[in-house]
């Protein structure tokens, strides 16, 4: 079934069809939601109601980790960190959850063939990048893609097997050197770009992970003058749909007096060009 090109943004009661722990404290939720599954693009997210009471009040945003348009399903990969994700985790397969989506502006996959695509994932930043690899493979072929996945330790590196099963190249970095490259994934990125000296203008980079990691990715990209670098940002979200202007990020805006303006992560992002972001 072809993807429906127009936005199907809406509010849907989605049946949870799978809820499984893929790694300690990391869960994969699969939901039925044909409109979302068929229109969502890589880097977009959904806003999930984790409670039917007024506490916690707000929805929780999660990037789409994979879409299965034929089945009408999509999946989320999430880390249990606080009250909301704990409640999410307790919802059982068979129950229905209210989901708003698909939301936000996702990744731009480029329009030049023969580009090299490097995907830099930190922790649960792997979720949208997993979907991105699907889309990149489909558009450009998996052989043009390298995934660099980082984590504190071997266990914290998410989706490694899934990336591998896509058939993309993957290299792993662990802070504690327990597996793969020893050190931050950004160190690995520098090495990988170094190996491609002279070819930088042919490289597109996509990144999602901790803020500090993405800032470093942006710095490396800027210095090595890669063609394009996109980062998927986070911020506290009240609405997720662009009406509250709560989730803003300073983005360069040469036409303004101060040279930047506040853009909404939920609507204008979450994916931004790294060059446009004012890193703090």
């Amino acid at each position: 079934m072809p993807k429906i090109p127009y936005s199907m943004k809406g509010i849907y009661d989605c049946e949870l069809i799978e809820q499984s722990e893929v790694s300690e404290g990391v869960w994969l939720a699969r939901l039925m939601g044909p409109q979302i599954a068929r229109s969502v693009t890589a880097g977009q997210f959904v806003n999930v109601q984790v409670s039917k009471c007024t506490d916690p009040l707000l929805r929780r945003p999660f990037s789409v980790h994979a879409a299965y348009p034929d089945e009408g399903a999509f999946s989320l990969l999430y880390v249990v960190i606080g009250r909301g994700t704990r409640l999410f985790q307790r919802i059982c397969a068979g129950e229905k959850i209210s989901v708003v989506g698909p939301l936000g502006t996702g990744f731009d996959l480029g329009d030049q063939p023969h580009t090299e695509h490097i995907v830099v994932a930190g922790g649960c930043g792997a979720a949208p990048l997993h979907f991105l690899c699907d889309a990149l493979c489909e558009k450009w072929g998996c052989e043009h893609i390298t995934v660099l996945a980082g984590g504190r330790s071997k266990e914290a590196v998410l989706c490694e097997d899934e990336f591998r099963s896509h058939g993309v190249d993957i290299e792993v970095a662990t802070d504690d050197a327990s597996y793969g490259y020893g050190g931050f994934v950004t160190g690995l990125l520098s090495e990988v770009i170094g190996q491609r000296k002279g070819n930088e203008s042919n490289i597109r980079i996509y990144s999602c992970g901790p803020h500090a990691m993405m800032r470093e990715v942006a710095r490396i990209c800027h210095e090595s003058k890669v063609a394009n670098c996109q980062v998927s940002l986070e911020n506290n979200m009240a609405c997720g749909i662009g009406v509250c202007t709560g989730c803003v990020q300073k983005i360069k805006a040469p036409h303004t007096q101060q040279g930047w303006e506040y853009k909404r992560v939920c609507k204008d992002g979450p994916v931004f060009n790294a060059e446009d972001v004012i890193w703090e």
Partner: protein
Amino acid sequence: MGVDLSVEVGRIRMKNPVTVGSGTFGFGREMADFYDLSQLGAITVKGTSLEPWQGNDYPRTVETPSGMLNAIGLQNDGIDSLINEKMPFLRQYDVPVIVNVVGHSLEEYIEVASRLDKVEGIAGLEINVSCPNVKEGCMVFGTTPQGTAEVVRGVRAATGLTLITKLSPNVTDIVSIAQAAVDAGSDALSLINTLMGTAIDPWARKFRLANVTGGLSGPAVKPVALRMVYEVARSVDVPVIGMGGIMTAGDAIEFIVAGASAIAVGTANFVNPMAAVEIIDGIEEYLTKMGFASVDDIVGTVS
């Protein structure tokens, strides 16, 4: 056959008593993805100032028990953008538009009001003298009867549009301020704006909002909002638009029987983008079930 949902707020004729809380609906564009905006009784757009305001630093929002704090700081693109970009979009819909007006000074309020006076599609102005998140102007006016009256009088002279004064709950005696606004020429009142609050991360020992304090909204504030709407509605003889924590049609009815002629759905839009239209349906259902012919039949009937 069928109940009459329509209400009047000043000279604004609303097809039903439901509008939205300023700042919780943007300028409508994003919400139009979810439903036909013509279904609403009115649309109250984000606070609009003379020049663009960039708003406060982030974090700007934080969740609290059954509520949230915001310190957006009235980020908006200014009146030119409203007139040239936002209004043409909104004019596509058959719905009165209320513009929430903010300013750092009395002059700014007046200038915004006079420039909006003749803009097609704008049915009323909501004078925001109650936003807790900007340093100058705004709430400074709204916390005294004199300050409120001064702004209302100024704006009143500058426009023929229906004037709604939006009241701050952060006061000892909201009735005296309400009365001052009416005496100064306000055609209607809306309340409540947010309650000033804060939140701290105990481990980092840091405020959770860059602005330190923010405005509390959502179900948590409903009891306070309802009390104030009741007090104000029984003391003044202009229509009141009630808001503060309305999530369901039942909540809306509470405000209406407390004395509100219309209600606004605010934070609920974030939790359920369909909230406003579901509330309209729920009000109709309530009136039908209870055998009332119109919304007016129940306004202020609590005992």
